[in-house]
């Protein structure tokens, strides 16, 4: 990573990290609510699994807007570093997790050789991010000690969350943003502009 990026793209990735850091906190409260309901049954961690997809959204938004190889990975790592800078209790471990998730999200785009940014690929990207990050957590958080059905169930919830909260929501937010006209200088905004011109012609 380095010189293929424009400075404004890197600042954008960092700002996505800040904004979604804030939004994640809002989601955290929702997760907390679900957790409190599930807690007595020992299913509390499912509460976090449901909102886990929001972690990957920065990857999907950045890849969808910037459309360059490595965007999903770099954006997630940069967002991770930004969140470490925001303080709270996030340490360098977060950067490591972010790198793993970003690599997961990048996988889907790599499979399509960074040419296809349709919804299905974005959803797939959310899912691959979920798969890879889940594997990482089996080790890092010790989830491997859980009963097989719990592992399968949490896995399913996380993949679903990745598909929906990262893939679908990420595309929706980016499209809404593109409509405001602020993405004029990025690949997504240019594509819309081209469509509009073709539509007009």
């Amino acid at each position, binding site marked *: 990573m380095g010189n293929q990026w424009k*400075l404004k793209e890197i600042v954008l990735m960092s700002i996505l990290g*800040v*904004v979604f850091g804030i939004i994640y906190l809002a989601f955290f409260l929702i997760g907390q609510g679900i957790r409190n309901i599930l807690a007595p049954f020992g299913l509390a961690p499912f509460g976090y699994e449901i909102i886990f997809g929001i972690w990957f959204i920065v990857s999907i938004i950045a890849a969808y807007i910037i459309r360059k190889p490595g965007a999903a990975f770099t954006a997630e790592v940069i967002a991770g570093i930004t969140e470490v800078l*925001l303080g709270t209790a996030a340490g*360098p471990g977060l950067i490591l997790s972010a790198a793993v998730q970003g690599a997961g999200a990048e996988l889907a785009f790599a499979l399509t050789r960074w040419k296809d940014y349709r919804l299905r690929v974005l959803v797939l990207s959310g899912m691959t991010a979920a798969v890879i990050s889940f594997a990482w957590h089996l080790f890092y958080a010790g989830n491997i000690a859980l*009963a097989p059905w719990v592992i399968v169930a949490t896995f399913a919830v996380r993949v679903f969350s990745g598909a929906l909260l990262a893939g679908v929501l990420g595309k929706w937010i980016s499209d809404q943003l593109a409509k405001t006209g602020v993405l004029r200088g990025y690949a997504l905004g240019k594509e819309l502009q081209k469509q509009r011109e073709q539509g007009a012609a």
Partner: protein
Amino acid sequence: MISSINPSIKAIAVLIPGIMLGFTFDVFTPLLYFIFILIVTFTMSDIPISKWLKFFSPFLIVAASFAWMTILYANQTFSYGKVLFTIWGLEITEGSVITGCSLALRSLCFVSLSLLFALTTDSTKFMLSLMQQCKVPPKITYGILAGYRFLPSFREEMEILKQAHRIRGVHRTKGIKGKLQQLKRYSIPLLASGIRKAERVAIAMESKGFTGERERTHFHQLTVQKKDWMFLALLIGGLAVIYITSYYLGYLNIFGKQF
């Protein structure tokens, strides 16, 4: 003092034990290391205990709920030993309790390592050190700093948005769809202004002659000294000693295998 340790070395020093802890499933090893981190935290830095507790305490609940889930649903490898009691038809074994507590302690180790880093590190210095020691391109480090700078202005903008929405009567919209719209009404203006700021600040930086070139002079020249390596050795060595101790005392458990 930990705050004077080179940030990159410090990051590595808390990362490696974090990964190495991922192998253990006994109570003794993470507990000992947790105590070790606490000693390091409060003897080698001036973090006030009250501040530390404020950040740390929420994670006690998270860790406890995680432990409880593991105790209930540990798989066969980890539910060894005799049955202690039964709840909702689930047999709670000695092994599952040990594994649950171990995982909870492990996550507390992560949190305290993170805090040790976050509460003693200056964000600018961390970025500069990533650039100077880890050879991260200046474009990335300065780009991140430029985005991070906007945090206070986003907070202010959130407040104004809340007020503006109130004026428009947004909170009176009903239903789940209305709530979803709510998310959009916050995120789109925040992101839109964020993207514009990103463009403006990038241009301002380039207009001051920033090219992203690696060759540049440094106002804050960060170096790696002997004390930085000693700190790294302390955190990793500490864990190694604890691993060995727990092996000799017969506690060590790696992926369910007792040694």
